[in-house]
Structures are given as structure tokens and as C-alpha cells.
């Protein structure tokens, strides 16, 4: 009884304006604290029409549908419905009677609707129509149509989001966590020109959101050749489509139809989704709508050549698209190049669907070969190119290597023009730009490394010019040199830093350089003054023995001195580790751990740990016997099958004996020791690599899976008829929803304040059961300026 009285008094106090004023005052006086408390108590949520309408006719969504119909009906003859996707059929199928008095429908396909007017475009709507209901549930579709409606000033766009007015009457699954993002943004539509000589495509998913360096160079080569070309980098467009759907429709990680989630950091460097061939059919299914749009667009535009930039993370879609194109347009020539085509052997295995493949750096080869094809020839036996038209006895000839990087210039902003900076940013609005200064590696001796090419550098002044050009577009001042050896010519790096300082350009940048005994504190201080914030020395070995085994070409003294000087200069050095190399001992592991732990003043961050890989083009690959490397099986057979590199389980080394198990054990020992000593482990890649080791897979194993016969058949049978991807999470009835003016907040019911509000009748359970039991809802309204 006493409790009841207490509640009654409290209820009357809370309902009074005095309560509201005191609460507002409290919030104003301790804004930050209150923010933190609100954050502790609950979270802001967003309405998702996509999750609200599964379109399977359950009672909850029909109720929501009825509310929409009522809202539209109330507008009578002044409203039309914008028809495109399946939601129109669903709403008309269930609410036809209620919608019989509206003006009609806008439908680009002009499908007839009983008793309603139908026009093809918004411009054809009569003056009496003032409102247009966008009949879509996906965020991206809604936003695209809103942009079209906004072009007609007299029209007001209505969307399923009008249900926000009725938070208690929509399915609880409709509420998703609000995440800060740059959306909505105006994504470009896919428009492929007709009559092209060549269409150049870059498909998802590159790591990082930056203008593509490789595509830039090929774009420029095609411009120089003067062929009719169009370059479309779909990577950033699909990136934003993915995140819009994730953040605005799903409120969580999208799930493939086999139950595997695509991580929220799918475009991150360490994500394995794209390189695991077992997932490729499911990825194709997930992106089917976009793939079909692209395929139809190419088919309609009918270019002579379709060119793809191929790398490990986009083989899944690029190969699929090439196969599909060959089915519907066999006359289109498929031309490929890119990272997966860095040698002819590698390229043939990584992308067997080619007509022409440009091997290695294609700046000098792409133009002439495209010109010949467009002139009606079928060129064959060309240096730097492999082709299905080559003579059977033709032995591949290396192509000309560009010697003058200054002539080639830098990245281009012309691919997306004025949309470049909009597209090349993360969903949180972060921008950075990869600007290569060099190509190749001046050292090229590290035994495990496959990035061993001739070293060339651009001039410092032209490089700094390019920085200024990029900044002039309004892009953020964060740069990275994605080179193998940014400092291959230290004098160029010094000039570059001095030039940045001289021109007083404010930038932040990072890069990878080799250790060098001639570097000193002053060198690093200069770099710091120029805007460098961190350096990766590629110092993969940390004992005298492993430095020698890996042929790193530095001493322990230089290793420590460079890192210490770097720290003294105010830079953050990061290190990588390669472990399990032939000849390495347990003592090396002990000494490595000891050095990193004891000298964490010099080695504050371990960026990555890799178990040794036996990859094509490495020193080990060419002379395995010299390094005590043996194979579980016939070497020639293994090399033939595993053209890309030998899977870890198939090779070992002696003196002392090291196989996959030993590599994994050493990896674990190092990782756990560094964790225990609280050494900075910066990258998720470390754990991804470790998981690969424990899980029995690695980069090479992923690639091995693409050789699996059953998977190949599966991929080849992948077609467009697969069911559309869908994702509707089960509702968890454990939240309380409270509407603050225009924002709905979600509170965990275990929260004490949430329970109190509930007891006071000031909020409500939004489960079906609760709804059925009670039809009375109250809301706390707080002034919008709070």
C-alpha cells in the first residue's frame, strides 16, 4: 500500500512541468555527465523499413502497413505512389481498398493499376499532386528516389519512415542501433557509355578507401592512346552501398545465406571474406542485384573490350563477371591486368578467363594492345602480354618496364571527377590518399619476399606538386606511400621532406622504408617536421641469426639505432615479424621476444607477425635446396599445382627441423609472450594470421581452395536465378523504447531507470504480448534544445 502511494506521488510529480524543468536544468548543468549516463542507460535507435517489412504478411507488419495506408489515404487526391520494387505489390495486395482514393502511381515501366492513374515520370504528375510516397524499404532506394523527388519543388516526399510517429505499433525488429555515419550521400548511378573501345572496371574489395593507384595508371595509358574508353571504379560505390545497408537497414553485420557474417570491417586489410573461395558463391548471391545491373549495363553498352583490374580480393567477382559476359556476349574481349597478374604463371592460374592478360606493370603495354584489338586485329605473341591467341610454341616475353615514373605522373581524380572525395572516404568520413613515390625495391634480397622488382623513383618536387594538387581538391591531408621501399633513395626522401617544409604544406603521412645505418636523428626529425607520423622499417628479423637467414642486410645495432632515433625524433616506428624461417632456432625466438620486450622504448608497436610463406618469385622458391627446404611430395608436382606458392603443410626446412606445426607453435609463443608483456600489438592482421595458422589455412591455402574441383564446378554453375538475399533478425524482447521528440531511444529492461520508467507507465514494453495487453502508451517529451 505504501509502495502504491509512493508511486502515485511520484507519478504526479513526473507529470508536472516542474519535473520536466528540473530535469532539463540538470541535463544542462551537467551535460557531459548526463550524456554519459544516457549512454549507459540506453542507446539511440533508428527505424528500418527494411526490417519492418519482411513482406511475408505477419500481423505486426500488416498493422504497420495499415498505418502507412491510413496516412496516405488521408492525403486523398493529392498523393501519388512512386512504384519500383516489390513493396508496391505488397502494399496494394493488402491495402488496396484504403488506397483507392489516391491520385495514382508513378512507374517508369508504366504498369497498369486498376482504378488508378499511371504516369511514367514525376514530371508528368498533375498540379493537384503535392505528395509522393516512395514505395521502397531499402535505405539506398529510398534515398535515391528522394533525390529525384527533390528536383520537383512542389512535391513532398513521403517514405515508410513516417512510421516513426508510431514507435509502439511497428515490429520491434524495426529498431536498429543508430551509428554515426556520413549517410545519406548521393551515389553516382551506373552509366556505361555505348560504342566504347574499352570499358575498364575495378571491382570490390580493395583494402582502404583511396583512389586506386593501379587503375589511375591504366586510365592514363588509355587516355594517351586516344581510344574510346570509360573507367569505372565500382569499389567505393559498392563500399558505400554495403555500409548503407549495414548501418541503415540491418543495424548489424550482413549475413550470407550460409550463415557466415560479413564483418563490419569488410574492406579492412585483414578481412578474409573476399579471399576465401568457399564464400564466393554466397558473395555473388549477396551482391546479385548489383552484379546483374552491371552485367546488363555492359551487355547493353556492348564495348569491344572489357578490362578488369584483378587482385586477390576481387577475383571472386571479376572471374564470375568474365564468365557471365562470355556467356551472353562471347564477342567481347576480356583483358585483365593488376596485382594477380604479376607473373605469367601466377596470372594464368589466378584468372583463367582472360583473352588477354597484361603481365606486371602494364603502363607501356595496355595502349598498343588495345589499339590493335580495336583496329580489328587479334594480336598475338606480344611482349608483356599473354593471350589465348598466342602460338602454341610461343614463349612468354617480358614487356617493357616503365623507366620514367615522372612521365607517368601520379593518381588521377578524373575517374569520378567531382565525386572523388565524396566516394573515397570511409562511412565515418575519414579520408586518406595513397601516393606512390617509388616502384620496386632497391634491396630485393630478402629471402621470403616476392616483391622483388627494379627500383625506380619519382622526383621529389613533382611528388610534392601532386600532394598540393590533391589538397587543392579539398581532400584530407592524410597520405601514405604504399611503396615497398619509400626510402629506396634517401636523398629523394630528404628533398621531398625539405620541399614540403619549404612550401609550408601541412600534411600527415606514413610509409615503409628500409633500415639504413646512415640514417640519424636529424634525418627522422626532418621527416617529423614534414608531417611524417609513423614509419614501418620492414624490419622482419630481430636476431643476428635471423637477419642473416632472411638476408635483410642490416645489423642489430642499425635495427636498434634507427628505431631509437625514430622515437627520439617523435615518430612512431612499427615493426613486422617473419617467423619460422629456414634455419631459425628456438633460441632466436627467445632472443626476439627478449629484445622486443626489453627495448619497447625502441619497438613500441608490433604491426604484424607472419609465419614464413614459400611464395612464387621468392629467393626460397628458386633455390629451396640451398636453404634446406624440403617438400612433402614431389617438388615439381607441388610447384606445378601450387603455382602461387607452396601451402604451409607441404614444406619443411632442416637444420633445425621446422614444419607447419613448429611455425604455429613459435607464432603462439611469440604472440602470448608479447601479450603478457603488454607490448603494443597494433593490427588485427596479427590475429587473423594466427587464426589462419590454428585453423589450418593461410593466404596460400585460400588460394589452394580455388583449385578444388568441386568448388570450380560450383562457381561455374553460379547463375542469376538464386534467391534474393534476405536478412531479418529474430526480435529480442528485452528492450524498452522511449521517444524523445524526434529520436527514439532503446533501453535495456535490466536497467534500473528503465524499470522505474516502465513501472510509472512512462514507457512501455514493445513486445507483441505487451501490445496486446495494453493499448495505453505514454512518452516523455523533452525539449529539442536539450
Amino acid at each position: 500500500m505504501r509502495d502504491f502511494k509512493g508511486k502515485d506521488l511520484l507519478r504526479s510529480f513526473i507529470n508536472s512541468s516542474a519535473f520536466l524543468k528540473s530535469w532539463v536544468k540538470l541535463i544542462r548543468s551537467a551535460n557531459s555527465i548526463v550524456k554519459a549516463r544516457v549512454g549507459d542507460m540506453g542507446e539511440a535507435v533508428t527505424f528500418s523499413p527494411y526490417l519492418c517489412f519482411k513482406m511475408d504478411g505477419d500481423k505486426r507488419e500488416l498493422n504497420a502497413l495499415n498505418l502507412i495506408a491510413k496516412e496516405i489515404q488521408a492525403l486523398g487526391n493529392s498523393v501519388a505512389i512512386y512504384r519500383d520494387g516489390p513493396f508496391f505489390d505488397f502494399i496494394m495486395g493488402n491495402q488496396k481498398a484504403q488506397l483507392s482514393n489516391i491520385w495514382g502511381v508513378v512507374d517508369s515501366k508504366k504498369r497498369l493499376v486498376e482504378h488508378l492513374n499511371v504516369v511514367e515520370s514525376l514530371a508528368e504528375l498533375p498540379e493537384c499532386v503535392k505528395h509522393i510516397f516512395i514505395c521502397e524499404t531499402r535505405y539506398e532506394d529510398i534515398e535515391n528516389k528522394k533525390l529525384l523527388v527533390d528536383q520537383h519543388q512542389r512535391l513532398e516526399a513521403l517514405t515508410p519512415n513516417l512510421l516513426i510517429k508510431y514507435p509502439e505499433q511497428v515490429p520491434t525488429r524495426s529498431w536498429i542501433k543508430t551509428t554515426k555515419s556520413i549517410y545519406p550521400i548521393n551515389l553516382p548511378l551506373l552509366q556505361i557509355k555505348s560504342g566504347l573501345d574499352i570499358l575498364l572496371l575495378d571491382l570490390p574489395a580493395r583494402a582502404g578507401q583511396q583512389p586506386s593507384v593501379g587503375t589511375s595508371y591504366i586510365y592514363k595509358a588509355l587516355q594517351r592512346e586516344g581510344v574510346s574508353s570509360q573507367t569505372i571504379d565500382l569499389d567505393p560505390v559498392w563500399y558505400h552501398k554495403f555500409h548503407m545497408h549495414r548501418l541503415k537497414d540491418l543495424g548489424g553485420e550482413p549475413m550470407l545465406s550460409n550463415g557466415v557474417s560479413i564483418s563490419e570491417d569488410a574492406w579492412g586489410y585483414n578481412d578474409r571474406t573476399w579471399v576465401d573461395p568457399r564464400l564466393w558463391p554466397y558473395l555473388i548471391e549477396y551482391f546479385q542485384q548489383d552484379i546483374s545491373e552491371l552485367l546488363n549495363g555492359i551487355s547493353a553498352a556492348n564495348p569491344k573490350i572489357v578490362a578488369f583490374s584483378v587482385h586477390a580480393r576481387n577475383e571472386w567477382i571479376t572471374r564470375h563477371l568474365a564468365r557471365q559476359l562470355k556467356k551472353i556476349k562471347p564477342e567481347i574481349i576480356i583483358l585483365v591486368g593488376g596485382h594477380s597478374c604479376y607473373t605469367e604463371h601466377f596470372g594464368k592460374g589466378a584468372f583463367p578467363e582472360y583473352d588477354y592478360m597484361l603481365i606486371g606493370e602494364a603502363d607501356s603495354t595496355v595502349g598498343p594492345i588495345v589499339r590493335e584489338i580495336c583496329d580489328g586485329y587479334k594480336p598475338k605473341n606480344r611482349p608483356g602480354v599473354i593471350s589465348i591467341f598466342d602460338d602454341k610454341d610461343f614463349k612468354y616475353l617480358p614487356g617493357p618496364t616503365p623507366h620514367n615514373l615522372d612521365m607517368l605522373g601520379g593518381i588521377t581524380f578524373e575517374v569520378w571527377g567531382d565525386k572523388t572525395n565524396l566516394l573515397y572516404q570511409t562511412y565515418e568520413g575519414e579520408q586518406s590518399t595513397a601516393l606512390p613515390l617509388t616502384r620496386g625495391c632497391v634491396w630485393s634480397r630478402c629471402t621470403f619476399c616476392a616483391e622483388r622488382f627494379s627500383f625506380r623513383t619519382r622526383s621529389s618536387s613533382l611528388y610534392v606538386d601532386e600532394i598540393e594538387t590533391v589538397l587543392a581538391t579539398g581532400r584530407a591531408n592524410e597520405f601514405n606511400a604504399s611503396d615497398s621501399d619509400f626510402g629506396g633513395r634517401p636523398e629523394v626522401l630528404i628533398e621531398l621532406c625539405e620541399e614540403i617544409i619549404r612550401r609550408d604544406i601541412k600534411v600527415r603521412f606514413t610509409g615503409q622504408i628500409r633500415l639504413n645505418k646512415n640514417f640519424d636523428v636529424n634525418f627522422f626529425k626532418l621527416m617529423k617536421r614534414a608531417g611524417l607520423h609513423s614509419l614501418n622499417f620492414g624490419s622482419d628479423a630481430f636476431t643476428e641469426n635471423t637477419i642473416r637467414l632472411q638476408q635483410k642486410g642490416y645489423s642489430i645495432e642499425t635495427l636498434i639505432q634507427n628505431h631509437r632515433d625514430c622515437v627520439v625524433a617523435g615518430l612512431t616506428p612499427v615493426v613486422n615479424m617473419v617467423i619460422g624461417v629456414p634455419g631459425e632456432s628456438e633460441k632466436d625466438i627467445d632472443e626476439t621476444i627478449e629484445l622486443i620486450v626489453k627495448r619497447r622504448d625502441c619497438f613500441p608497436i608490433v604491426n604484424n607477425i607472419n609465419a614464413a610463406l614459400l611464395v612464387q618469385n621468392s629467393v626460397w622458391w628458386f633455390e629451396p635446396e640451398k636453404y634446406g627446404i624440403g617438400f612433402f611430395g614431389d617438388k615439381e608436382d607441388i610447384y606445378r599445382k601450387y603455382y602461387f606458392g607452396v601451402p604451409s603443410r607441404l614444406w619443411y626446412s632442416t637444420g633445425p627441423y621446422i614444419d607447419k606445426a613448429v611455425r604455429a607453435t613459435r607464432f603462439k609463443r611469440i604472440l602470448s609472450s608479447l601479450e603478457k608483456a603488454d607490448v603494443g600489438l597494433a593490427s588485427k592482421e596479427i590475429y587473423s594470421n594466427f587464426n589462419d595458422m590454428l585453423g589450418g589455412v593461410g593466404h596460400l591455402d585460400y588460394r589452394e581452395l580455388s583449385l578444388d574441383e568441386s568448388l570450380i564446378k560450383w562457381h561455374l554453375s553460379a547463375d542469376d536465378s538464386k534467391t534474393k538475399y534476405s536478412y531479418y533478425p529474430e526480435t529480442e524482447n528485452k528492450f524498452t523504447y522511449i521517444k524523445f521528440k524526434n529520436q527514439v531511444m532503446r533501453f535495456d529492461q535490466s536497467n534500473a531507470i528503465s524499470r522505474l520508467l516502465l513501472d510509472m507507465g512512462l514507457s512501455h514494453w514493445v513486445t507483441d504480448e505487451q501490445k496486446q495487453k495494453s493499448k495505453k502508451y505514454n512518452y516523455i517529451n523533452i525539449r529539442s534544445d536539450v
Partner: protein
Amino acid sequence: MFEIFITHDWRESDNYNLIVKSIDQLFEFGWRNYSNFWHDPRLRITNQGDASILESIMHEQILPARLVIELPHLSKDSRGKKWLEYSLAVARELEIPVLRINIDDYTEKDKGVNYAECIDEKKLEKLRKSILEIYAG
């Protein structure tokens, strides 16, 4: 497109860089340079087995060329001489015309002038004409 091989001995040299810059000035992207002097550092030039690998690589570099530019300064030491003779032999075998350029005709090194700047228009024109004549047949 001019397909050119410039003789080299797997080392960068001022003369090589000068001639490459000069041809860049003349033809920009209108020529392709097959003479990549970089080689895998695991190959030792003095090792007979490795040298034969390098020979086959150089052969592959000369094969697509339609003009070999001979830099006679290479013959000043034994290493340069070996690779110069090899490349000229391949050119003869493949019947590829050779244009000998006495680099001293094009430089004023002794005066301490930067190489890239010291090829005047007259000398460039001479080089252009020579290349065009050979290409014309």
C-alpha cells in the same frame, strides 16, 4: 611506336640514363624501352650458371626490339665489354639494326654541366633523324 633496346651490363650508368632521357624528350610515350638493367640480385654475374640465365633474359629483352642502340662506353671494362658483345651478337642474329651512339658527342661532361640539360636541340635532332631513318628501313 619505337621498340628499342639500349645496350647495358646490368648496371645503371650515367650514359644509359642520358640516352634514355634524350629519347624520352624526343618521343615521350612514343617509344618502349626493353632494356631493363635490373636483375634479381640472387644471380651473381660472375657465376657461369647465373650468367647464362642473364644471357637468356637479355636475349628476351632484345627479341621484341626493332632497334638496338649501342653505347660503346661499355667496352671500357671487361664486364661491360662482355655484355656489349653479347647484345650485339644477338642483334646480328636477329637481324635487328644497331645505332651506335658515341655518348661524348652528346655530352659536355667535362664542363660540369648536368647531363640532362646538355643535349641541345641540334644533337637531339640528330638522334631523332637517326632513329627515324633506321625505322624507315
